[in-house]
């Protein structure tokens, strides 16, 4: 109610077309806002209606939102204004999203509504896409009005004395101009960023205007407080610190490539150490044997080694392959697993058991699929 009232008052106060348009903008942006109020137990009839609509079907909200938009600035205004209005509508839609996402982030204790918010969040998202698309289509024609509008936003932000937001707004203004000359995709993203920044500025502004509403006032104060608490952490480029990040990676990269010579030396060292170790182990073994102990002599199956252990001339893969081949041949001669009748019987039984278990499994699977309605061919 309160929101409505303040809104009406404003309407009465200002009669210029521009302001009417601004109001219309406000009326729409009120929607997500009023949701907040609703959560807090503010029973505004109109809001409630709208909200319940949203509960039922997120899409309808999108529709009504858009309808509101086109109604408000309607009444036969000039084309350029319509375009502007449309642009604002898009912004609004985007804002709705930011708003919705923003609140769950900041307001703890509203978790019970998180589900609903999600839906609206998603609605916002889809609207966002729509708006992005529209924007792109209108990109060229809208350029002028956009800048114009962004000016307004810049002012708003200034009112708010939120320096950072202002920078954002002006920055995006610049971006916007650039965007029209750049590629499509780039334009879109920069715009969505733009929408986001300017939105924040306006969101806070709106909050202040709704002072009449006690709860929402608290709400906004609370939010501001939190926002300050979690300020963005600025991180340096780290170019002086080689323990982390880019500098570290580059340093490591260069360190890992000291040149062939150094690397070869390292490997030689390693191999030498390794050989020494082995040599020592061998010597120890021999020493043990010499001490009068005894070692197990293992019989080596197969062909004798053809190569000299010292010179290491070819034993060759051929020989190895031959051995393997031979082994494979010999294997065939061995008694197979179905040599005895009981073996065969057992194998047969096993197979049947396996098939049975597979069939059981299939059946279970089918049950599961039926539960998932996987058999519905449409």
């Amino acid at each position, binding site marked *: 109610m309160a929101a409505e009232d303040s809104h009406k008052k404003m309407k009465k106060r200002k009669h210029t077309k521009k302001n009417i348009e601004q109001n219309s903008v406000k009326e729409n942006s009120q929607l997500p806002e009023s949701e907040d109020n609703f959560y807090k137990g503010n029973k505004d009839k109109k809001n409630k209606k709208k909200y319940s609509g949203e509960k039922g079907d997120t899409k309808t909200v999108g529709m009504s939102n858009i309808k509101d938009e086109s109604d408000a600035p309607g009444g036969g205004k000039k084309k350029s204004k319509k375009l502007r209005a449309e642009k604002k509508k898009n912004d609004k839609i985007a804002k709705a999203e930011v708003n919705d*996402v923003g609140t769950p982030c900041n307001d703890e204790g509203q978790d019970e509504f998180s589900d609903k918010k999600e839906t609206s969040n998603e609605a916002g*998202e889809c609207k966002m896409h729509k708006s992005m698309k529209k924007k792109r289509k209108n990109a060229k024609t809208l350029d002028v009005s956009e800048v114009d509008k962004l000016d307004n936003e810049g002012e708003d932000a200034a009112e708010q004395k939120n320096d950072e937001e202002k920078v954002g707004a002006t920055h995006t203004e610049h971006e916007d101009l650039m965007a029209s000359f750049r590629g499509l995709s780039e334009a879109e993203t920069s715009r969505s960023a733009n929408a986001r920044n300017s939105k924040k500025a306006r969101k806070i502004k709106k909050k202040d205007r709704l002072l009449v509403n006690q709860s929402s006032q608290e709400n906004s104060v609370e939010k501001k407080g939190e926002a300050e608490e*979690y300020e*963005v*952490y*600025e*991180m340096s480029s780290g170019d002086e610190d080689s323990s982390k990040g880019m500098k570290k990676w580059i340093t490591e990269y260069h360190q890992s490539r000291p040149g062939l010579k150094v690397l070869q030396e390292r490997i030689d060292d390693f191999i030498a150490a390794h050989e020494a170790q082995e040599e020592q182990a061998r010597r120890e073994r021999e020493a043990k044997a010499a001490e009068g102990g005894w070692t197990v002599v293992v019989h080596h199956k197969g062909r004798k080694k053809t190569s000299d252990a010292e010179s290491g001339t070819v034993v060759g893969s051929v020989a190895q392959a031959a051995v393997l081949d031979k082994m494979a041949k010999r294997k065939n001669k061995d008694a197979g697993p179905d040599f005895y009748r009981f073996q065969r019987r057992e194998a047969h039984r096993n197979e049947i058991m396996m098939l049975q278990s597979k069939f059981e499994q299939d059946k279970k699977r089918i049950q599961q699929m039926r539960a998932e309605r996987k058999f519905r061919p449409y």
Partner: protein
Amino acid sequence: MGSEATYTDSTNLKLRELLKEAQHDYSPESTKIINDFVCSIKKAIDQIPEDLQVTADLGPGFVRDIGADKVEFKFKKPKSIEIGGSYSFQCVAKPDVHVDLFLRLPKECFYEKDYLNYRYHAKRFLYLCIIKKYLKLSSLIQEVRWSTFHNEARKPFLVVYPAARLSGNAAFFVKIIPTSTSLFCASKLILERNNVRSLNQEGVLQATPKYNSSILEDMFLEDNFEFVKRTFMGWKELGEALILLKVWARQRSSIYAHDCLSGFLISIIMAYLASKSGKNRINKPMNVIQILRITLDFIANSKIWDHGLYFQPDGESNISNKDRRKQFQSFPVIICDSFGFNLAFRMSLSGFQELRDEASLALSCIDKCKDGGFDEMFMTKIDFPAKYDYCIRLNLKGSREVYSCGFCLDEECWRKYEQKVLSIIDQALRGRTKLVRVIWRNATFECNIEDGLSTLDGEALLIGISINSMEEAFKQAVMGPSPEEKDKALEFRKFWGDKATLRWFRDGKIAEVAVWEHEESERHIIIKEIIEHVLSHHLSLPKENIISIVDQLDFSLRHGNKDPISFSVNLLKAFDNLSKHLRLLDDIPLRISSVQPLDSAFRLTSVFPPPPHPLAYEDSVGVKPQKLTSTCIQPLEVMIQLEGSGNWPMDDLAMEKTKSAFLMKIGESLQEKWGISCTATEDDVDVFLSGYAFRLKILHERGLSLVQKQGNAHVKRVLSSDKKLFVRGQHSSMINGLRGRYPIYGPVVRLAKRWVSAHLFSNSLTEEAIELLVAYLFLKPLPFRPPSSRITGFLRFLRLLSEYDWSFSALIVDINGDLTPEDDKEINHNFMSNQREYKDNMQNISPAMFVATVYDKASEAWTSVSPTAAELRRLATYAASSAKFLTSVIMQNLNDSYRWECLFRTPLNNYNAVILLHRDKLPFPHRLLFPSEINQGRKILHGNPSKIFQPFLLPGDLRGSLEEMKNKLMVNFDPLRYFIHDIEREFPEKFKVWYDSLGGDAIGLTFGNKSSKKRGRNNNCEDKDVVDSLRAVGELGKGFVRNIYLLKAPKNKLRHGYLRSVSDRD
């Protein structure tokens, strides 16, 4: 006996389940609801006053457009209203639950000669108009709409929607179909007669077979229906088979169409097979599967179709089939009822070919697929985008040309137009295509027939093209006749318009040709250009109304305007060069016996095969670096094998060191002999040759056999380096072979890889796994044929990923067809034990995807680490919504490039936190598809870019000496990879990282299992903890990280988020 029994049994089980879903529930309650509703319709019709004067004013548009004269009559009550259609013999298949009401038109309303000049059609329509008017008054009826009989606009009927619903809230509706039993003398409507007087050529009246059939159809509708009903009544198996066949046909939009199959025609064909005229091919003792098979086999293979199917009235068969064929010469397919009327008069030749093709595919599904092809036949949707290699939409809305000769003569103008388009495309693509299908479903439900027929062009006309062989299809020239054959040459010129030119060939021949010149990588556009050219030339359609789905996704594979795949030629040359040099080396202890490529760029499946780098040439060759010379270079791995030797150390580590020593020696001697420079770390040696950096790897066979011994004991999950190399070598050569067989394989893989990484799944699905998945599409294409276009292949990849039942079956990719039944058994055994392990140990993040190949029967190579079950679920959800989205973009009238881009734009709201990177610090910034921005969540960190790394050489660097510049070149330097590695090392449990290895600028983080359990509701402290660790993550990427956002994506919603955000866009 055992295997056969289970095979049919589990099929049977599934069929039973399917039938349960598809059969309408004929319970007393629902029957009562339906009967009551039908009664109320009858009552409403009964209340229409007799002798009401009916004039054309009820639907002036319709009467005008079909060109009828003398349409006034006095309304009489219908002769009878009977329930007919498949509902009456309990064969209606869900979801299309409807009741046909046959409304027999009273003879009193018609004159004897009303079969002439569309008077019958007009009166039939006006009669329905009256009924519609009165039905609307009834409160039990929610809505009455027009629809058209098999898309024939001149024969509309009424669809009545009840206010009531069946149990379970199932909807049903009633179709009111007028019939005209014994209204006219059938002999006046024999096919040779002309009954539309305005159809003449210079005064000579022409036969109107289609028009006559259209009236005859109404006259014999009830009789034929009675015959079908008699056959099906009380024959349960036959009825079930009919329902299954309906399901089968409905899944195939290319055959369940007005010029091909309908539910009624299926039942007629089955009734034929069960009748004496059909030699009782179907008889009582058969079960459902047998009936199904016989019917499909008859459709696919029977020679009887050449002469036609004839229902013979008892004891009367004195006319030979040939004479009859002559009688029906104007129809490609004949199913003649006992009255001498062709029931299949709408069927077109292309439709029939398609039908036979689909039927034979279905038969091979039954034979070759598991569970008797159940999934392939009944559960897989075969729509235009997935079936045809090229889909083309023609937007003909408001195009007057379509009905310039009047709406309806013998045929309707839309059918005529279909034929015209088909013949043009057929001629233009002769030799290139296997099948062209043109369908225009122009008469949809929403049309308002009263206002005339000109509005019936809202739907787009669809053209589907299947390609025979790529070689033929992508030919650049259409050869024409020599100019000496004047008539033919003139014809050629007329057909091809300004594209026809005279050319002198090398063999001295001179001929007319039409040429489309394109680079190798752009050949697929040729078909599109040909079609656009001929259609706009012959139909004077503006280009923007011809939407061909061919190259819309190419943007994702391009660098600027160029597809980097064209660099592959250089690459392969460079590789040959390398292997020649390597083999020639003789001053190393062991000679090199083989050189094998490993990197995907060598087998043309890399998304971005690297371009030759100006600084990676041999010393002797100086190539001047241009602007924008990259500082990073991708190394391409090459595997070499050395001569055998017994002197290798047996120890793992020592062996690796020895390999490195060998590689360094090789590098050194390349440098000395040919001035080929190289760079090395302790593990890798990179050789610069012909513009590429080759990373050499040694495969040592001995190491392999060592590992195999260990592997048998199931000790190691992680493969040793030699085994890995071996497997990669095998994979590489097999995929290369496959790519040779299917030229389109490469582009499909590249799209698939791009999609996977664009949605930040680089960590979840390895490149090789993607290659195998796509290979599966080509090797086991049923129920399709192997794809021949990149978009079709890509769509099928998405569907495979989303629909495959990973938890229940192994994916076996048998590239060269050399798996024996024993191998299959072994694979299945491995799979089962794998599953058991998984079930035993639920917390264990075990692999969810089992992909087996000849060289890897236990699926250890590519999917043993990832994706996990959760990752796979996410992948499948993304794939499902992308597939759905792609289908709708192809089928619907949305073709702006933004929509196509959406397929590769990933929503960033499905993560707990998102890290955005500095784009200009990516090693290859030009590979970034879309710059990511975030408009939600809380920004908690902002980092400044590092100044020490630039992806491109600065102008200052370019002035230095070649040596200096070469030192600036960094091999395989990838900050993204290092960053991911650092995060995973520092926070192994806390965060799960999602990223795009192909050059995305966003990284998604989701909380690992442990932290999510701890996360309470209002746990402020926990929140703080998260922020702190995110800051720590940011610190790890100093100089690289731009922003970090904390989002609160609720965990349980993750799975569906993407689905909605994508599908809501349309």
